[in-house]
């Protein structure tokens, strides 16, 4: 698997530990844990000196850790199948409701043709199958994200929804600044 | 076991097709390769799987056929299930004709 983050293929410094009794990496290694592990091992995990990430299955809402967000530098939200769209809502909740600004990573069945929706919902890192070299993976990624640049909805990414662009245009027109 | 043939849809245009004796595909059920036993059916499905991989066909599967006498069907064999009869010979209704004057 390769990680694409901020439009770059990056080395993944994180180790993921999901089972409740699997050993954790050494104290200075960043680790992603499951919700069960977090709930079982909260104090010990907080005591570590390295960055902490939380992996949520699509059935686990970030609402359950809404008060603990400050502990996490990363959320890994699972797509167990591309048809399971719950993580789209979860990413938006993290960004819009809970004001979370760290990394939100899409993991699992992350398909090229869904990246564009994921990014709109607040994902900024993507675990994609390692196919070919990094440059090819990146080219694919960028092609996928550039296919559509007109959006009607408000979402947590930087795109301006169409209704706002229309308003902007008519204001510019009224002010005589339209090109 | 019953007689079977492999059917699928052609990728490019979606048409109903049947695996024939020469490992090719025909739109005519009369040209289909007859599988008389389990081994023949398995072999035919393997050829179909290769055709899927080669992007010629999609969704291949086996259907049961039976000997039809000429009066019932234009072919020697016809599918057993009614669904497959319709797939083989087209809709049972005269579609696309202008509606009647009333």
């Amino acid at each position, binding site marked *: 698997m390769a990680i694409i983050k901020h439009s770059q293929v990056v080395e993944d410094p994180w180790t993921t530990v999901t089972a409740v009794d699997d050993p954790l990496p050494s104290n200075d290694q960043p680790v992603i844990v499951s919700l069960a592990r977090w709930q079982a091992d909260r104090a010990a995990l907080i005591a570590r000196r390295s960055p902490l990430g939380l992996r949520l299955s699509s059935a686990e809402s970030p609402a359950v850790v809404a008060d603990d967000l400050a502990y996490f530098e990363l959320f890994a939200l699972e797509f167990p199948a*591309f*048809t*399971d*769209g*719950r993580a*789209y*809502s*979860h990413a*938006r909740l993290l960004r*819009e409701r809970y004001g979370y600004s760290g990394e939100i990573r899409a993991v699992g069945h992350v*398909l090229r*043709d*869904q990246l564009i*929706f*994921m990014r709109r*919902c607040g994902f900024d890192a993507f675990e994609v199958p390692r196919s070919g070299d990094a440059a090819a993976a990146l080219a694919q990624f960028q092609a996928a994200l550039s*296919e*559509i*640049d*007109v*959006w*009607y*909805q*408000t*979402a947590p990414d930087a795109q301006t*929804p*169409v*209704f706002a*662009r*229309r*308003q902007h245009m*008519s204001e510019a027109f009224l002010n005589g600044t339209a090109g | 076991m019953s007689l079977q043939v492999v059917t699928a*849809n052609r*990728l*490019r*245009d*979606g*048409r*109903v097709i049947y695996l024939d004796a020469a490992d090719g595909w025909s739109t005519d059920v009369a040209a289909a390769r007859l599988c008389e036993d389990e081994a023949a059916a398995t072999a035919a499905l393997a050829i179909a799987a290769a055709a*899927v991989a080669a*992007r010629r066909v*999609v*969704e291949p599967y086996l259907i049961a056929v039976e000997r039809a006498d000429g009066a019932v069907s234009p072919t020697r064999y016809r599918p057993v*299930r*009614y*669904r497959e009869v*319709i*797939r083989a010979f*087209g*809709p*049972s*209704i005269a*579609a*696309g*004709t*202008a*509606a*009647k*004057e*009333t």
Partner: protein
Amino acid sequence: MYRYDEFDQRLVDQRVAQFRDQVARRLSGELTEDEFKPLRLMNGLYLQLHAYMLRVAIPYGTLSSRQLHQLAHIARRYDRGFAHFTTRQNIQYNWPRLEDTPDILAELASVEMHAIQTSGNCIRNTTADQYAGVAADEVEDPRIHAEVIRQWSTLHPEFSFLPRKFKIAVTGAQHDRAAIRVHDIGLVIRRDANANVGFEVVVGGGLGRTPMVGKTIREFLPKQYLLSYLEAILRVYNQLGRRDNKYKARVKILVHETGVEEFTEMVETEWRHIRDGAIDLPAEEVARIRAYFAAPDYQTLSAAPPEYTAKLAADPTFADWVRTNIAAHKVPGYAIVNISLKPIGGIPGDATADQMDAIADLAALYSDREIRVTHEQNLVLPYVRQTDLYLLWQELRRQGLATANLNLISDIIACPGLDYCALANARSIPVAQQISERFADLKRQHDIGELRLKISGCINACGHHHVGNIGILGVDRRGEEYYQITLGGTPDEQAAIGTIVGPAFASDQVVDAVETIVDTYVGQRQDGELFIDTYRRIGNAPFKESLYGNH
């Protein structure tokens, strides 16, 4: 009607390019069928029994003459010269080639149309009352809000992979012609005590394996909150709707299993978080959309002008057609014309390319270039002057489009069934044709009166059989086509799901069974009673008795 601006156009153009690339990747082998299938479905492309099938969206059932001409052109150039109007106000082509579909989508985009989200587990084409803007009993034109919903739901980043498909219908009238109570969300435009306009929000209706009438979760939603409220409903559903069993994945099951009070509470809680955020459209944008739905320039005409009433008196065939197929218009001197796509013995909802062209031309001449598609699979010309009706009728007759049977027993809704559909258990169309032939005599049909007969080829209920006064469901009994009959369903504001009358009938018995049911009604009815009224008064028993009594 609505016209695309540069943004709307750019989106559908980009979507065509995206799909062209996806088809190329499929044909080159970069995508497997499993990977490609959801992509083609999101563009309305199915693989059916005989070939691919392309379903094109007709948002809220409104078409211009130019668009209908283009649909005819596509039928001729890429298909077999005809197409099928569906119960979701869409149109389907039965024989397109995969290789051609990007070009077909480009042809659609050139007339501001698309096939986006006509399949898949996403928000589907939003439907509306076909008499929108011209019905006398209307609070406000539902198309304004349906267009707002169309834009909001198009490529919604959060709601494109829902547990299951999601259908929204809107009406602004008292009398529900859009079957809103059997949709995932039904919206009824209402006024509150202070005459403010808003929506009654109905959730969790639907047909299929578990038919249910929707529940009102909010009596009155101020209209400026439409999108944030919809977003709240969808967000609750996206997170909590069942994904373990596709037959339990629709929102109706979630509403049913959680209970309507608790479901409502979850929606309201979610909505409180987002209601004053940036989801709802600014008033200027709603006004911009509203302006497109301004009424045409009506002339000041007198109602029932003498040349029209003279024709009515002189030509009883014309008078019959007017009696059934013309609805009252809100403007004096105008009429709403229903064009029946149910000729006796014909295929319900099918139209040839020539008929589409003819209707598009007639709409240009007589109806401000506008056509509506109904969920009953008929077409409507919404702005016809009464003085033009006679000429229009003669033209329609020439095209085989003047059958005077609207809402009568031969105005049958039928899904494509086993003649086309890969999911079917039995054929629908031949049954519809035989029933139509049996009751061919229009005089008899008029005597029977309003009677909604609906046929589905499987439990998915695309033919809305559950809400037919007489509903017919095709079932497979050890390889044989059988038909189960339900009675007493209705799709309107008194929505009800029909009750199974008894064991299913073989295909050669089903038409007789329908006739027995009709005869039983005629024998039992009291003065002026419609079939549904009689049924509600006497119940299933007398019908059961006459159908099965001597067995």
